[in-house]
């Protein structure tokens, strides 16, 4: 890639020396000195690279600090090492806002100090472990030393505002609806939102820690529960990483089935979200109709594959269930029906002026802000971020089809609504294409033979889930066990953009703004 050459020479000019290694067709590992960590980010930002993910891991007496960048579908996995005795590295959050919470998470979990970080508050840690305990260090036991009752996290300093008529609204962690827990702190004047601050971490379940020591099968199950609405894509990303590490090729049949499952998951969630957006502006007709379509879709999953949200159907080395000819036929008729239903519904919804009044121009996220936070998926695509892993860094089976990406620039709730609708249509076409390819395939293995990977081997699974790009890092230890697992859900980046999208909206519009983003709490808190 030409930009990488120019970028490298620019680095050499600033005396940043890079040890480069091509680890995957689309990914290069670049190792640099820790003192250049921030300077690298500055040059990367000048080169318009997107900051995609950051995590660390402990190898003996050292920490490997990672950051993942992307440009034009090519990824750079950046690595620096720091000593456990003095774990310090310059922060990239000064350059990339997207790195802010990620670095705070790494600090809370490893005790790595990010120098000059703009926000010194803890993020993932509340009161379940001590200030000087770091759960992901090797010397921290998975059981920790919890007190009988973990006290609430009362010491977090929210941004304060002063002035006549300004008031504060604390919301959560237990919300009024049936949703995941998190805390939102609003500053408002009258109905207008002046500022929103999110405080998450309530559903921190130690996912990264309890992954350690698992078998590959066990990790696939856990990955499917990183975010329960993204069972397929998270399991896929984790399995992809494990398969890379072990050098296991999966069959074309299995890969096509994975593609079908991932697109079915996207459709199910988008149907639900479109309905829920309508519900949040009290348009019950559309809500009930979309929930009906989603239910039918989930029932097909259950009848054909044995689980309504296809949990545990992606397993390491392949898939747990075949798509038979009968199943293919069933799915094709299902798609025909869904098309006809959506055609009816969308024309009815589109003509509704009260819906229009609520979702157009509300919750505006400008393309600049979207780029600033590295937003992904339908949130990014509705604000001009024309990126999709399936098209820009295609992995099988998407390398065999043309993926059409719905991108818009308006950046409002309506835009996110329509991107979802377009994605449903695109996904239906993809499923049809995958089924067609499947029909022309001789019956093949669903699961490839597993080979025990060498200790220290690692992989990076990058897939496009229904919320956007998922990056999953897996490193193996001895005897086929997992030494490190880090899944980066797209929500981690989209959450911060939500804080900006709600500004100058009215407080009663927060639920619909929030729904139009529909970020995962579980996938973010880990």
């Amino acid at each position, binding site marked *: 890639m030409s930009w990488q050459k120019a970028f490298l020479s620019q680095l050499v000019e600033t005396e940043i020396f890079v040890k480069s290694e091509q680890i995957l067709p689309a990914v290069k590992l670049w190792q640099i000195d820790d003192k250049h960590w921030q300077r690298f980010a500055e040059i990367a930002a000048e080169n318009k690279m997107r900051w995609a993910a950051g995590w660390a891991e402990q190898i003996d007496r050292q920490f490997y600090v990672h950051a993942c960048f992307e440009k034009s579908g090519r990824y750079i996995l950046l690595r620096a090492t720091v000593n456990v005795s003095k774990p310090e590295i310059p922060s990239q959050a000064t350059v990339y806002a997207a790195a802010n919470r990620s670095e705070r998470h790494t600090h809370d979990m490893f005790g790595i100090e990010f120098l000059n970080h703009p926000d010194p508050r803890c993020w993932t840690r*509340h*009161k*379940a*472990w001590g200030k000087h305990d770091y*759960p992901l260090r090797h010397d*921290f*036991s*998975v*059981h*920790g*030393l*919890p007190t009988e*009752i*973990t*006290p*609430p996290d009362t010491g977090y300093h929210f941004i304060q505002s002063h002035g006549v008529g300004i008031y504060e609204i604390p919301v959560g*962690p*237990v919300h*009024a*609806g*049936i*949703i*995941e*827990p998190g805390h939102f702190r609003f500053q408002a004047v009258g109905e207008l939102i002046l500022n929103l601050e999110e405080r998450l971490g*309530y*559903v*921190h*379940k*130690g*996912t990264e*820690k*309890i992954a350690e020591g698992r078998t590959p099968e066990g990790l696939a*199950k*856990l990955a499917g*529960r*990183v*975010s*329960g*609405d993204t069972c397929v894509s998270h399991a896929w990303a984790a399995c992809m990483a494990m398969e890379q590490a072990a050098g296991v090729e999966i069959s074309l049949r299995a890969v096509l089935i994975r593609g079908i499952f991932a697109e079915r998951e996207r459709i199910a969630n988008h149907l*639900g979200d479109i309905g829920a957006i309508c519900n949040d502006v009290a348009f019950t*007709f559309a809500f*009930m*109709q979309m*929930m*009906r379509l*989603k*239910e039918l879709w*989930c029932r097909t999953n*259950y009848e054909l594959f044995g689980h*309504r*949200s296809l*949990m545990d159907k992606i397993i390491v080395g392949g898939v747990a269930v075949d798509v038979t000819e009968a199943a293919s036929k069933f799915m094709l008729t299902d798609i025909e029906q869904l098309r006809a239903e959506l055609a*009816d519904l969308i*024309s*009815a919804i589109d*003509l*509704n002026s009260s819906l229009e009044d609520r979702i157009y121009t509300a919750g505006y996220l400008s393309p600049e802000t979207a780029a600033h936070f590295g937003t992904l998926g339908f949130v990014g695509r509705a604000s001009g971020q024309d990126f999709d892993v399936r098209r820009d860094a295609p992995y099988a089976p998407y390398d065999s089809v043309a993926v059409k990406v719905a991108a818009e620039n308006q950046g409002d709730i309506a835009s996110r609504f329509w991107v979802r609708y377009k994605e449903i249509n695109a996904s239906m076409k993809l499923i049809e294409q995958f089924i067609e390819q499947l029909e022309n395939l001789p019956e093949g293995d669903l699961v490839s033979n597993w080979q025990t990977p060498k200790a220290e081997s690692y992989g990076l699974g990058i897939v496009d889930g229904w919320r956007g790009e998922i990056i999953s890092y897996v490193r193996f230890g001895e005897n086929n066990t997992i030494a490190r697992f880090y899944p980066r859900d797209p929500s981690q980046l989209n959450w911060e953009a939500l804080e900006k999208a709600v500004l100058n909206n009215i407080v009663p519009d927060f639920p619909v703004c929030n729904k139009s983003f529909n970020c995962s*709490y*579980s996938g973010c*808190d880990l």
Partner: protein
Amino acid sequence: MLNTFKKIFTVGIVTENYKAPHDAELETLGIEIKRRIDQKFTGSLAIRAVDAGSCNGCELEIHALNNPFYDVERFGIHFVASPRHADVLLVTGVVSRHMQTALLRTYDATPNPKWVIAMGDCASCGGEFGTSYANCGAVSNVIPVDMTIAGCPPTPLVLLKALLAIMEKEK
């Protein structure tokens, strides 16, 4: 507007008939009842859903209860916005330690008499996450539980049957 009415009429009513399960059926459904709602109960059940560390898989199926196929409200079951309005806490998740106090406070805020249903494998027995530095494990490790529903996640049908079962009078 005509499009809307046309759709409503052509789709018709999709709501399905469901009855409370027999005692023998409960076990196959993975439902365990420790205490039913007692005689004084008048037939309407207000539920406060609390995610205490779920992956969001269970929440999706709770949502499904309100879709037109299950239409849970026709049985007098409705979801309320505050624990102060609730008869039942429907708790999902493995109770993360960061949610422990919130769950205890929600429990305390629920007026007596109250019932707690632990929904899903995580809430019933710890599931895939179990007890750790970050999780308390099953809901019963934190507050008393009157019913558990197995499944990852339980299907809306099982969930609906469980709710109907806990409302049934002791025979």
